[in-house]
Every structure is written in C-alpha cells, then in structure tokens.
C-alpha cells in the first residue's frame, strides 16, 4: 500500500516539475519571438517616420526658389544670404545618408533664419501680399519639419532603448539590429520661425 502511494507521489512530483519546466520554456519562447517582432516593427516605424521627415524637407526645398525670388525683388543686393541658401539647398539635394541630410538641412535652416533677419529691414517687402503668403507657407513647413523631427526622434528613442536593454539586446545582437541616428536640430532651431505682422 505504502509503495503504491510513494509511486503516485513521485509521479505527481514528476508531472509538476515537467509542467513548470514546460511553462518556463513556453514563456521564454514567447518573449523571444515577441522581442524579435517588436524590434522589427519598431525599426520599420523609424523608417516610416523618417519618410515623413523627408517629405517635409522636400516641401521646404521646393518652396525656397519662389521665396528667394520674391525677396530678391525688394532686396537684390543681399547676395550673401541668397548664396548661402543656394549652397545649402544644393548640398541637401546631394545628400544621401540620414547624417548628410540632417547636416544639410540644419545648414539650410540657419541660412533661412538669416534671410528672415534681413527681411526685417525691408518694410515694403513685409507689406507684399505674395511675400506674406510665402512666409506663412514657409513657417508652416518649418513647423511641420519640427513636428515630424520630434516624432522621428521619439521613435528612435523608443527603438534604441529597446535595442540596448536586456534581454532584447541579445536578440538585437543576434539579428544585427544596431542603434539608429537621431535628427539633432541645429542650436536654436527647436522653435520654427514665425511671421510677425
């Protein structure tokens, strides 16, 4: 009788241990798969958000010639500002990597900021209806860039902290998920330029 009870006890213990081990393996497996999947989708959301940034950089790029021509009509001798804008714009057109694009776009941003300072000296220009419209469009675009940049950096932060944290770091290393680059704004450019009438 006692022997049979012992046997049943051992069997019960064995089953319990087996269940616990299976449970642990299942949990580890689930967390591995979900870590990998979350890395993939976070990585893709960083790419998608960078696409939004690029769209707005392109919109700014397209608006510049019109704006510069309008300003030239009133302030033709401000050659230095026009040249720095043209240079930065050309550099943006040739930029390939994210780092190059960030650098070129920051250069363009500071050139545009100088243009806005110059504009202050031309009351006739500020009264021009077409110029006002362009300025609204430009400051709207600058603000859109700032917003999409903020969202991009949020996504990069989320992704990067996931990549660096245990235990996801194991999976990240295993599948080659490296940290992504932030879009650092030029100093003082966190606030988009605003038209004051």
């Amino acid at each position, binding site marked *: 009788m006692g022997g049979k009870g012992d046997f049943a006890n051992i069997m019960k213990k064995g089953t*319990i241990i087996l*269940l*616990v081990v299976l*449970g*642990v393996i*299942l*949990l580890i497996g689930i*967390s591995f798969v979900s870590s990998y999947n979350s890395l993939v989708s976070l990585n893709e959301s960083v790419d998608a958000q960078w696409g*939004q940034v690029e769209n*707005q950089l392109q919109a700014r790029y397209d608006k510049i010639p019109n704006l510069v021509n309008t300003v030239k009509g009133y302030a033709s001798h401000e050659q230095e500002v026009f040249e720095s804008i043209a240079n930065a714009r050309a550099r943006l057109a040739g930029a390939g990597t994210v780092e190059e694009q960030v650098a070129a776009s920051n250069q363009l941003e500071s050139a545009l900021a100088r243009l806005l300072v110059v504009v202050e000296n031309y009351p006739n220009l500020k009264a021009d209806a077409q110029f*006002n*419209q*362009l300025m*609204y*469009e430009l*400051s*709207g*675009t600058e*603000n*859109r*860039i*700032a*917003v*999409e940049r*903020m969202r991009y950096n*949020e996504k990069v*932060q*989320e992704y990067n*902290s*996931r990549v660096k*944290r*245990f*235990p996801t770091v194991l999976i990240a290393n295993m599948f080659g998920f490296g940290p992504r680059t932030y879009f650092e704004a030029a100093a003082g450019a*966190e*606030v*988009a330029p*605003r*038209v*004051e*009438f």
Partner: protein
Amino acid sequence: MKRLYIILVLLMLPLAVCALSPIPGTNVHDFAGILSNEHLLDSRIEAMYQRTGVEMAVVTVPDLGNESIEMYAVKLFEDWGIGKKGEDKGLLLLISLNPREMRIEVGYGLEGALPDSFVGVNLQKYVGPALANNDINGLIEFVAILEERIIAQGDAVPRVAGETEGISRYETNDGPNPLAGLILFVIIVALVLLDFRFTGGMIVGAILHSLLRGGSYRGGSYRGGSYRGSSGRNRYGGGGRSGGGGASGKW
C-alpha cells in the same frame, strides 16, 4: 494570493495619463476663462460638424508650460485625438493667455483644403481682434470661413441623419480580435496561477519587474483616446492627428 491580486490590479492601470482632458459635451474648452457666450461658438462648431464631418476644438489655456504654442498644439491635438484615425479631419484653435498667443492647428486630412496662408490670414483677421475685444462673433465668423472653404474644396462629408451620436464618433477598428485576446488571457492566467502555485510567483515577478522598468519611458506620451472610457459625452477621441500644419499669431 494577495500578491496575485495586487499584480492583477497593476495590469489594469492605464498606461498613459493625460494632463488636460476635454470637457464633455462641448467643443469649447475655456480653461483660461477668457471667453463669454461660448455656447454660441459651440453650436456653430457643432453645425459645421454636421455639415462637413470636421471635428473642431477651441481650447484656451492660462499658459503653455515652457513649450512653444506650435508644439503644445500638436501634442494636445494628438492627445485628444481630434478627428477620426486615418481621416485626420480635425481642427484645433488653441489660445494662450500668457503669453497672448493663438494657433490654428490643421489635421493631416485638411491640409489640402486649408493651406497655412489661408488659415493664417484669417486667424489674424478674425480671431486676433475677437480675442482683444472679447467678442465671440469673430470666432464664430472664423469657423464659418473655415467651413465654407472646406465645402468649396470638396472635403465635406455631411453626417447621415439619425446616426447615433456618441458611439459612431469614437468607434475605431484598430482593436485586436476579442476571441484571440480571450484565449491569450486564459493562457496567461493559467500560467500565472501555475507559477504562483509552484514557485510563489517568482517568474511572474521577474517578468513584471522587467516590463515595468521598460515601460517607464512611455509614461509621459501623448496618445489619443486614452480617456475614451470615461463617463460623459466626449466629443473627440477618434485618434486624429496633425503634423504641424496651420498658423500662429499674437493677439
């Protein structure tokens, strides 16, 4: 079992806490207390909603808490989820008392119909003087001009008569399959019970610890619709977003 109970309660805590909640049952949220006769503005906005399907919030705040009005507006817009997710046809008129600034933020879906220069010029023309003279009519006029333009540009989708208010406006189709969720929930509860039975909750404790540590940086995020379950008739929460389109000015 007490620990298990605490853990279950913790799991039910909402992830995001929002700083500013919309006042239920109105489109005008005068937190700074600078508007008068705001019910007139509210019904004008409601009329625009019926004719165009565009949701609009007018929000006044005492200050901007060290943020630019542009960033404050875009975050508030996303936090409240003005407009429906994917359509993003929402408008936010944000007015700050200190500093005296104003901004009209245009949802992604209306950027085509309402260019920055159009809303900027009319913001200066109607909203600025209306605020300076405490005249609600200027704000009503501003809404009328936006509505006219949205209709003229073919972006208006009138509400269907008899559509149930308060349900249709918050419904989103992005939830997971409820059955799959239920099965997963049962499996998780079974695993948690097993863990508590045999290890005293060590595994669950370890997982929760890593989850909570990891989740902390998400705490302050502005995600739309997080208050959707609260009582009263909230007008927003559809998950609409904006991307910095619109115009700002001083008043």
